[in-house]
Every structure is written in C-alpha cells, then in structure tokens.
C-alpha cells in the first residue's frame, strides 16, 4: 500500500493508505483527527473545511495522493497553535457570541472564517457583507446571524 506524508498541525505524519482515499477519511479514520466533520462528501456543505498552506479547502474532495510532503494541513485542532495561543481569536469570538447551537458545522465555520479574514487582511481591507455572503458553509440550526457577528468580532482581534 502506498505511503503518503504531509505536515499535519505542525508535525510530519506518514500514512499507509490507497492513493484515491479522500483526505478527510485519512484525517478522521487513519489519524484520528475528528475536528473536520463529514457532512456531504461532495464539497458542498463545507463541514470539513480545513487549511492547506493557510488557505481554506475541503479534504472530502482531495485524494490523499494529491497532498505533497511539504503541504501544511491545519485542522481546527491545530488552529490555536497557528496563533500561538490557547485559543485562536476567532474561537474566542465564537465563545463570546455563544454561536454554536448543535455545533456540528462549527469547526468548518471557524476554519472558513479565519481563511476569509486572512484573505481580506492580505488585500488590505475589512471584512464586508459581500465577503460574509460568500460563505457556503451550511448551518442547519440557522446560526448564520451569530456567525456573521462573531466573524466581525474575531477579525478585529486578528493581527494582519
């Protein structure tokens, strides 16, 4: 069975798994990292949103063989360390706004939010309503208004 290696939350990991297994299952079932949630497996619901080299992506739709040894994959478990804190400012904002209802989509929502804020900050602008409207992550509890407020609050605490 082929061996694949990549950087997961700051550590080089190796897995023996078939080439076409989607990365989400490698993370969850092989490596036991269950923050990224399985929702649709079609790159639609965005519950599994993680970061690859700092940008948002959905591991349900990436075969593990597409990941290079130097690629840095960050899941919600590795997000605080990326900010050098106990919790990332976006997670703090989430707690303060009491965003979660059932909570299933929230790791993906937070990872998508952080990538969105980074993108806006890199372009030298504030998060806009249009940016927030572009978030595709489904929240079946309907916590969208709280998510929007938390992202704006979290963005204010994220250093560009």
């Amino acid at each position: 069975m082929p061996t694949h290696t990549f950087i997961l939350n700051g550590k080089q990991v190796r897995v023996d798994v078939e080439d076409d297994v989607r990365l989400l299952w490698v993370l969850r079932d092989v490596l036991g990292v269950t923050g990224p949630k399985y929702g649709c497996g079609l790159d639609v619901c965005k519950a599994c949103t993680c970061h690859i080299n700092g940008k948002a992506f959905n591991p349900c739709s990436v075969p593990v063989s597409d990941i290079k040894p130097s690629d840095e994959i960050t899941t919600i478990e590795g997000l605080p360390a990326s900010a050098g804190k106990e919790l990332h400012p976006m997670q703090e904002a989430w707690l303060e706004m009491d965003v979660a209802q059932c909570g299933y989509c929230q790791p993906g929502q937070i990872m998508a939010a952080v990538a969105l804020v980074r993108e806006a900050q890199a372009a030298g602008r504030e998060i806009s309503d249009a940016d927030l409207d572009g978030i595709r992550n489904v929240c079946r509890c309907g916590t969208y208004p709280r998510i929007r407020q938390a992202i704006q609050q979290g963005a204010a605490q994220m250093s560009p």
Partner: protein
Amino acid sequence: MADGAARNVGLGHLAQLVDGLGQVLSYGLHLEKGAYLEGSWDNAFYTRQWNVPPELDVIVMPTTTGVPGGAGEFGVGTSMAAVACAYGRANGKMPTSFPINHDGPLGFEPLPTVPPIPQSPTDGLDHVH
C-alpha cells in the same frame, strides 16, 4: 436577566427566523420512487449565509401564562407563519403549500439513485480559497 443573556435570547430567535425563511421559501425534499431527489445541500435549498436578512429585530414578548410558549424551537412555527404572511402580503396571494417553490421546476440536476453511488470529487485543490 444579564445583558449578554438577553442578547443571546434575541440572537437565538434570529436562528429560528432563519429556519422559518427556508421552510417557507425554498427548503423542501422531493420523494420519488422511494428516494429523495435532493442529493446535497446545494439541492435542498435550506437558508444559506447569503439569504440572511441584513436587518432584523426580535422582540421577546412578556409571558402571560407562566408556561413556556414560544422560545427555542417553538419559535420556528411562529417565524414560518410570519414569513408566509409577509410573502402573502407582498404578492397579494396567500400561499397554501410550502415551500412555495416545491411544485415548480427542480432547481438542480438530481444525482443518480442507483448504485454505484458516485465517488467524492477529486478537484478539491482547484477550489482552495
């Protein structure tokens, strides 16, 4: 009640309104020959971030009975009725079945319902953002 708690009650009801919006306008399933035609959240049109009203005031009425009446999930029925009434007034015709787009043409191409089930996509790295 502390300010924070009051705010969160209000925000909680925003979530219920979001539910009511979808239930009235777009969020339905089509059952055909024992299988749902909707294959993902891009087919079942539940409320998404871009459907959330930009301005919304939630007023929690004082209790008159001493028993729970409308908070939490109870609020979904209320908000759905409110959205349906608003839709009816805006269009001059009261809708009588929901979601209102249910009997219209499908807004998507149904996925196959016979095995093999399609595999997950492989182009995830083309959509990094």
